[in-house]
C-alpha cells in the first residue's frame, strides 16, 4: 500500500532478508488482490526465506488472503460500538441479500464479505466499508439499497460516503 521499501532494501545486509517479508507480501497482494503461489515462490527465490516460513507469516496476519477476492470487498465493522448498535443484524442482512456467508465470495465474483475488528469511526456505528468508502449509521433495512448501488456499478465505484 505504501512505499516502505527503500529503507528495508538499504539495510538488508544488516537485518537479513526476513525484515522485508511483510512489505513484500503486502506489495504482492496489492498487485494481484491475493497471494498467488507463483508470487510466494518468487518471494522465496528473491529472499531465500523458506516457503514454509513465508506461508507461516502469510497465514498469521488477517490482512493476507490466499484466494481471490470479489470486485467489491465489504467489511462489516464488529467493533464494540458497532456490536452494541447491531452489527450482527447488518452482517446477517448482507449474508441474506447476497446469499453468501461471511468470508465467502459471491459466485459472480462481485462481492466478498468479511468482518473487521474495528474501523475506528465508532460514532457512526454500525459501519460497513465497501472498498474504501465508509457507510455509517446503517440499519439492516438499508443494506439492500447500498449493495444495489455497487451491484449496478459493477466494477466501478459509486459515490462514497453515506
Amino acid at each position, binding site marked *: 500500500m505504501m512505499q*516502505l521499501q527503500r529503507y528495508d532494501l538499504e539495510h538488508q545486509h544488516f537485518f537479513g532478508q526476513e525484515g522485508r517479508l511483510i512489505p513484500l507480501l503486502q506489495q504482492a497482494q496489492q498487485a494481484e488482490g491475493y497471494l498467488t503461489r507463483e508470487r510466494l515462490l518468487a518471494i522465496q527465490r528473491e529472499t531465500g526465506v523458506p516457503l514454509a516460513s513465508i506461508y507461516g507469516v502469510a497465514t498469521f496476519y488477517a490482512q493476507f488472503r490466499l484466494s481471490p477476492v470479489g470486485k467489491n470487498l465489504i467489511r462489516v465493522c464488529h467493533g464494540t460500538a458497532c456490536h452494541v448498535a447491531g452489527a450482527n443484524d447488518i452482517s446477517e442482512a448482507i449474508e441474506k441479500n447476497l446469499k453468501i456467508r461471511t468470508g465467502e465470495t459471491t459466485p459472480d465474483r462481485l462481492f466478498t464479505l468479511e468482518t473487521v475488528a474495528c474501523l475506528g469511526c465508532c460514532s457512526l456505528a454500525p459501519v460497513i466499508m465497501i472498498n474504501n468508502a465508509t457507510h455509517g449509521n446503517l440499519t439492516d433495512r438499508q443494506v439492500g439499497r447500498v449493495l444495489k448501488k455497487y451491484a449496478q456499478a459493477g466494477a466501478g465505484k459509486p459515490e462514497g460516503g453515506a
Partner: protein
Amino acid sequence: MRILVGLGTCGIAAGAENTYQALAERKASAAAAWSLAKTGCIGMCYREPIVEIHHDDGRRYQYGGVTPDKVGRLLDEHVQGGRPIEDWLLWASDGRGSEQDYYAHQTRIVLRNCGHIDPEVLEDYLAVGGYQALRKVLEEDDPEALVTSIIDSGLRGRGGAGFSTGMKWRFTRMVKADHKYVICNADEGDPGAFMDRSVLESDPHSVLEGMAIAGFAIGADTGYIYCRAEYPKALERLTLAIGQAEAAGLLGENIHGKGFSFTVRLKEGAGAFVCGEETALMASIEGKRGMPRVRPPFPATRGLWDFPTCINNVETLANIPWIVMHGAAAYAAFGTAKSKGTKVFAMAGKIKRGGLVEVPMGISIRKVIFDICGGIKEGKKLKAVQMGGPSGGCIPAELADTPIDYESITRTGAIMGSGGLVVMDETTCMVDVARFFLDFTQRESCGKCTFCRIGTKRMLEVLTRLCEGKGREGDLELLEQLALLVKNNSLCQLGGTAPNPVLTTLKYFRSEYEAHLGNKKCPAHKCTPLLTFAITDLCVGCLLCIKACSAGAITGERKQKHVLDQAKCTRCGQCVKVCNVDGAISVD
C-alpha cells in the same frame, strides 16, 4: 479568512469530502476573499461534516452537519454577509453555539492542534510552534535533564499499562549500544478506540517531533512507526509528514546542525491485534509471525533486532513536545497525585455526543458522560461503561462517580486502557458483551501459550452456551475458574487481561448471568434464543411478519390479528424487526 473542513476518517465517512468539493467549486467560481484548507478531527464526530471559519482577527466559528447543500447559505450569510448562522453553530470564540459545554470541561494538550491545523501542511504545524521543542532540547543538549523532566512531569504510558514514560526512557538510555531504536506503537487495535488514529490523521508532526525528542533522550538514531493497515488515512498523512520533515531538515542527518541524526520509518501492520503487545510488535517489524516472547529481557535492553528499544504509544509521544515547551510542572499541575496530565477518550456507544474528548485525570466518569457528552441517547438509563476494550472491564452505573485515574479504574476491575469508552444502556446485555469480547480475544490469540489459546476458547464456549439458553449447572463457577487461570498464567497481556470483561460483568451483573442460566431469560432482551415472542391485540394484520417468518410459525388473514405458534417459533426475532406497529409483538 480561512475555511477549514474536518477531513478525518469520521468526517470523510459522513461525506465531508463532498462538502470540501462544494466549497472548492464556489471558491473557483468567485473571486473569493478566503482560503480553503483541510483539517483533521475536531472531536465532535456526532456532528460531522464540520466546517470551521477562522477570521483574520482571531474569531472562530465551528459549524456542524454542513452537507454540500448548506455550503451556499453558509458562504452567503456568514462569509459574505458577516452574519453567523446561529442554528448550525456548534461553537464560536464569542461564546455562542450549541456545544459550548462540550468544550468547557476539556483540557486539550494532546489534541491541541487537532481540527485547527492542516495536517498535510508542515507550515501549519510550524506556525503553532511545531518543532520548537525539538530545537529546544537540541540547543540545551542535556538528555539526562530531559529524561528527568519527563519523569517529573508524571507522564505515564497512554497505551494502557501506565508505566512511567520517563523511567522507560531512562532504562533505555542507561544501556550502552552503538544502535538504538524508538518505536511508536500505532497499532491501535482495541475495538472502540480511535484516539490514536485521530491524532495521526490530524497532527502527525507532533508524534514525529515526540519521537525525535525521545530518540535524542535515549540516544537512538532510528524510529519506527508501527501503524495499523486499517487506517489508510493515517498512513497516507504519516508518509507525507515524514517526507516533509526530512525535506525541511527536521528529521534525518544532523538536525539543526547539532550533530543529532534521527530517521523515522513507517511500518504498516498486517492485521493482528496481538501486535499491539510490544514484543509481538517487534517480531512483526522483523518480518516474523507477530508472537510475543517472555520478558525479561525487556525491550530496553534487548529489543528490535536485539538492540535497545523504547516503545511509546502515539498519545504518549504527542504529549512530549508540549511538556518540553511548557515544563514538567505545568503538565503535573493537571491530574491527581499519581496520574498526571490529561487523557483522551474515544466516546462511543449509546451516548448523545460520541467523539473525542480530552480531560484532566481525576475527572469522574459521570462528568464525562453527562456534562461533556450530553448523557444517554433516547432518554435511556446508563447501565455500564466499558473501559479498556477487550483488556478492560465494565464499570456499572453505581460506580460512575469513580475518578478517572490509573489506580481508581484498576480498583474497579477495569483498566484505563488506551482510552476507548463505550457507554451502554439498559438494552445492552452484559453476558452478550462479555461473549463479544471473548469472541474477539479468542480469535486474536496468537496460539503460543496454552492458557490463552485453549482457555479463552473454553470460556467462549461457556458464554455462548449461556447466550443460547443451553447453560449448565456450575457454568458460572467454571467460567470464574477458567478466567483466573487464563489471567494468571498467560504469557502476555493479551491473555492476561482477556478475562477482565468476564470477571467484571460477573462481579457487577451476576444476576444477569443467573437469569441466563437458571430462568433461561435475557433481561435486556438481546439474546434472541432466550426470548419469547407473542402477538398482542395491537396487531393490525398487515401480513409483514408472516412473510418474514422463515419457520412458518405465524399464520393469519389480512386485517385480522395474526397467531404465533410457539412450538414452531425458532426465536430468530425477524418478526419484531419487520413489524411497523409498536407493541404489536411482545418480547419477554
